C-alpha cells in the first residue's frame, strides 16, 4: 500500500507561513531575490526577515493558481518581455505589473508588497536582469546581485570561492548600510549552520532513493524541497528536515514507498514539469515507472559529495560534518557558505558539459536506472535546456533515453501530445531492454 508521508503537513504549514509573512508582515524587512542565493547573510540583520524567492514562488504559483499564472505571463509579455524569456521571470514580473500576488495557500492579495531590498544571484544571463526589471518597475528597490560564477567543480576552486566570498562580504556591508541596522555575526553564523544543515539533510533524504523501492517519487520530491528553498536558515527548517530524514529512513527499513509499484526506475534531467502536467506523470505511473532521481529536485538546493577523483558522486555528506564546521569568524562562515552554495549540482553543468555528463553517469549507476528522461526547459537557458541535447547523443546507446521539450511554467511551450507519444515509446524501450536482460 502507498505510504503517506507524516511530515507533509508541517512542511506545507511552514511554506505557507513564510509566504504569508512576506505578504502581511507589519514589521521587519521584506526581502526578495533568487532563492538560488546564499540566504544566511540576510539573517545577520535580525530574525524578522521575510523572504520571497523568485523560482520557487513562480513554480508553486503555477501549481496552485494556473489561471493567474497564465495571466501574469501574458502581462509580462505585453509589457515587452520576450516570448522566449524565462517563464519564471515573466510569471514573477507579471505579478508586479498586475499589482497583485498569489501564494501557495490560494490567497490572492491585491497590491504588490514592495520589498525593502533585493538580494540575489547572477548565474544565467537573465538571473539578475529579472530583479533589475522588478526594481525598476517598483521605482528603484536597492539591489545586490552576487555573481555566482559556478559550474564544474567551482566549489573546489579557491579562486572562485574567494571571489564569491569577497562579494558576500561586500554584500554584508551593503546590507548594513542600506537598512541602517547593526549586524549580528552570531545570528549570521547560526543561520549559516542551519542553511548548510538543511542542504546536507536534503541530500541525505534524496540519497535514500537508491533503495528499491525508492521511498519517494518525483511528486513528493518536488513538494518536499521548496521549504528548503524558501527559507532554509531557521531552526524550524532544520527540525523539519531532520524529522523527514528519520521518517524516510524508517520507510526504507520497512520497505515502504509512496509509490510502491516500481517496475521501472527513471533518472530525470529537467525542471519539474510533471507538476504542471500531471497527465505526463500518469502515463509513467500507469505502467509502474517512477522517477526516482532527478537533478532538479536533488540538486537545486541540496548538497552531495560532488566531484571526487574526477568523477561525480551522489553520496550524501554526513550531517555531523555540519555541526563541526568552524564558523567562528565572519570570513570563515562566509567561505563555508560560498563553498556549499557553489556546490549545488544544478550549477555544475552550467558551462561544464563534462560535469553534467559525469552527474548523469553517476545518477544512472547509483540509482540503478532503467531509463533516462531528458526534458529541456524551453525558456531556461542553463543546462536545463542545452546540456540535454548533448546528453541524449551520449546516452541513447547506453540506456533507454527519451527527450522532449517542456518549460518551467509556461504550458503554451509544451507539445503535450508529442511528449505523451514519446513517453509511451520510452516505456516500450524500457520494457524491451528489461526483456533483453532477463
Amino acid at each position, binding site marked *: 500500500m502507498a505510504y503517506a508521508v507524516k511530515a507533509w503537513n508541517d512542511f506545507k504549514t511552514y511554506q505557507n507561513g513564510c509566504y504569508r509573512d512576506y505578504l502581511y508582515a507589519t514589521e521587519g524587512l521584506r526581502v526578495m531575490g533568487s532563492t538560488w542565493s546564499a540566504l544566511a547573510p540576510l539573517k545577520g540583520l535580525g530574525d524578522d526577515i521575510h523572504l520571497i524567492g523568485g523560482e520557487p514562488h513562480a513554480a508553486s504559483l503555477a501549481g496552485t493558481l494556473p489561471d493567474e499564472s497564465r495571466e501574469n505571463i501574458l502581462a509580462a509579455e505585453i*509589457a*515587452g*518581455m*520576450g516570448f*522566449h*524569456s*524565462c517563464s519564471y521571470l515573466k510569471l514573477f514580473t507579471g505579478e508586479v505589473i498586475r499589482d497583485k500576488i498569489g501564494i501557495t495557500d490560494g490567497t490572492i492579495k491585491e497590491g504588490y508588497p514592495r520589498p525593502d531590498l*533585493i538580494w540575489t544571484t*547572477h*548565474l*544565467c*544571463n*537573465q538571473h*539578475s*536582469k529579472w*530583479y*533589475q*526589471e522588478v*526594481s*525598476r518597475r517598483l521605482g*528603484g*528597490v*536597492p*539591489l*545586490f*546581485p552576487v*555573481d*555566482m*560564477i559556478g*559550474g564544474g567543480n567551482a566549489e573546489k*576552486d579557491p*579562486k*572562485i570561492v*574567494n*571571489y564569491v566570498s*569577497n*562579494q558576500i562580504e*561586500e*554584500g554584508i556591508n*551593503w546590507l548594513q548600510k*542600506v537598512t541602517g541596522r547593526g549586524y549580528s555575526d552570531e545570528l549570521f553564523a547560526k543561520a549559516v549552520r542551519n542553511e548548510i544543515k538543511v542542504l546536507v539533510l536534503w541530500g541525505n533524504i534524496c540519497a535514500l532513493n537508491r533503495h528499491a523501492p525508492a521511498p519517494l517519487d518525483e511528486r513528493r520530491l518536488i513538494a518536499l524541497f521548496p521549504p528548503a528553498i524558501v527559507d532554509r536558515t531557521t531552526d524550524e527548517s532544520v527540525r523539519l528536515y531532520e524529522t523527514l530524514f528519520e521518517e524516510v529512513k524508517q520507510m526504507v527499513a520497512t520497505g515502504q514507498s509512496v509509490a510502491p509499484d516500481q517496475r521501472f526506475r527513471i533518472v530525470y534531467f529537467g525542471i519539474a514539469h510533471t507538476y504542471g502536467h500531471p497527465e505526463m506523470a500518469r502515463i509513467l505511473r500507469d505502467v509502474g515507472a517512477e522517477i526516482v532521481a532527478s537533478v532538479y529536485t536533488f540538486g537545486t538546493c541540496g548538497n552531495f559529495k560532488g566531484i571526487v577523483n574526477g568523477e561525480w558522486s551522489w553520496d550524501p555528506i554526513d550531517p555531523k560534518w555540519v555541526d563541526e564546521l568552524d564558523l567562528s569568524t565572519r570570513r570563515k562562515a562566509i567561505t563555508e557558505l560560498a563553498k556549499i552554495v557553489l556546490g549545488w549540482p544544478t550549477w555544475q553543468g*552550467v*558551462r561544464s*558539459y563534462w560535469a553534467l555528463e559525469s552527474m548523469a553517469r553517476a545518477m544512472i549507476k547509483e540509482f540503478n536506472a532503467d531509463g533516462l528522461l531528458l526534458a*529541456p526547459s*524551453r*525558456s531556461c*537557458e*542553463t543546462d536545463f*535546456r*542545452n546540456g*540535454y*541535447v*548533448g546528453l541524449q*547523443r551520449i546516452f541513447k546507446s547506453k540506456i533507454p533515453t527519451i527527450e522532449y521539450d517542456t518549460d518551467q511554467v509556461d504550458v503554451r511551450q509544451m507539445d503535450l501530445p508529442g511528449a505523451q507519444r514519446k513517453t509511451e515509446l520510452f516505456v516500450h524501450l524500457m520494457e524491451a531492454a528489461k526483456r533483453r536482460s532477463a
Partner: protein
Amino acid sequence: MAKKGSDTVIERFRSITENPQGYAKSLHEQGKLVAGYMCTHVPEEILYAAGIVPVRILSPHVSQAMTRSYIHETYCSFSHDCAYQGLSHNYDFLDLITTSSSCIHMGEAFNVWVRFAGFEGKSYLIPYPHIIETKPAAAFMKESYGEFKKFLEGFVKKPITDEDIEKAIKVYNQTRRLLKRLWELLRREDPPISGPDVATATLASQFMDKQECNKLLEKLLKNLEAAPGKGAPGVRLMVSGGACDDIEVLDLLEHLDYSVNLIFVDSCTATRYFWFEIPEGRADKLTAIAEGYISRIPCPSKDNVPGTGEKKRLRYVQQFIEEFKPEGLVFLYQRFCSPQPHDIVAMRPILDKLGVPSIDLELDSTVPVTQFRTQLEAFLEILKPVVPLE
C-alpha cells in the same frame, strides 16, 4: 576613374569580412599561430603577447540546420552560427579556440567546438565575472588571466614577458584609438564615409592581425579626415543591439527609398568591441588589462551595479545619443537573445524622454531583406513629420 585611396582600403576590409576564414588561413600559411576567440571579453592582448594572432569567430550567415542536433533550437541564432563554424570544419587549421565565461549561449557554441568538432585538446575557457561591476572582479580577473598566461606559456613553450604584454597593449590601444577616430567622423552632419563602411572596418579589425589593421586604418583616416562629406545627408539612424555581424543589414539601412545615414552602432561587433583602452605603462600588466576590460561599455549579460542594480550600459547609450544625435534608433538583436530584450524594455522610457523613436528588428542566421526593408521604410514614414525626408 581611378579609385580613391580610402576606397581601396575599404575594399580590403570588406574582402576580409566576406571571407574571414580565408584571411585567418593566410595567417596560418605564413607560419603564424592563430587562435579563434568567441567572446570579446577574451583578453586578446595576452594571446598577442604570446605571438598568437586572435581571430574572432563570427557567423557565416548561411542557412543551415546542422547545429539543431547539437544546440537547442531556442539558443540565439548567433550561437548556432558560431557553432556551425566548428561543426563544418571551416576552422580546423586553428591552433587554439578560446572563450571567456560570458553569455551562456556562446558558451554552448564553444562547448560544441570542444566536444563535437575536434577541439578538445586545443581549447581554453577563461573563467570571467558574469557581473563586471562587482568590486572583487578585477582581482578575480587578474588571477584568471594569470592562469591563462601560464597555459599559453606552456602552449608556445616560452615565457611571456611584461615587455611582450606592454607591446601588445600598445598595439591594441592604437587600434582602439584609430577606430574611435573613424567613428567620430560619423558625428559630422555630412560624414566623409558611410556608416556601413565604418562598421565594416571595425568588423574586419576583429579578425585581423592588429599591426596590419592599424596600418590600413591610419591610411584610411589620412584620406578621410580632411575630406569633404559624401553629400546628401539623410535621416540619422543609430543601431543598438547584440551581436550583429551582418553588414548586409547595415548596408540595407543606407539603401532604402529614403536617404539615411547610419551614424552609430552600439553592439559587441561594433563599438562595444573597442570603446575603451587598457592603461599603459603599469607595473602590474594583468591588473591593467582587467581594469581596461572592466571599463568597457558593459555587455548586457554582465551589467548590474551591485547596490543599485543600475544598468551602466544605458548611460553610454544615452551619451552616444546626445553626441551622435540620431533621429531614430533601430534595436537590432538576435532571435532568442536573452539579455538584450531586457535592456530594451528599460531603454524605451529613456528614448521617450530624449524624443528618439525606435523600431525592433530581430536577426536570424540570414537577413529577411524584404521584411526589414518594409519595416524600416515604415519607420522612416513615421519619422517623417519630425524629420524632412529626401
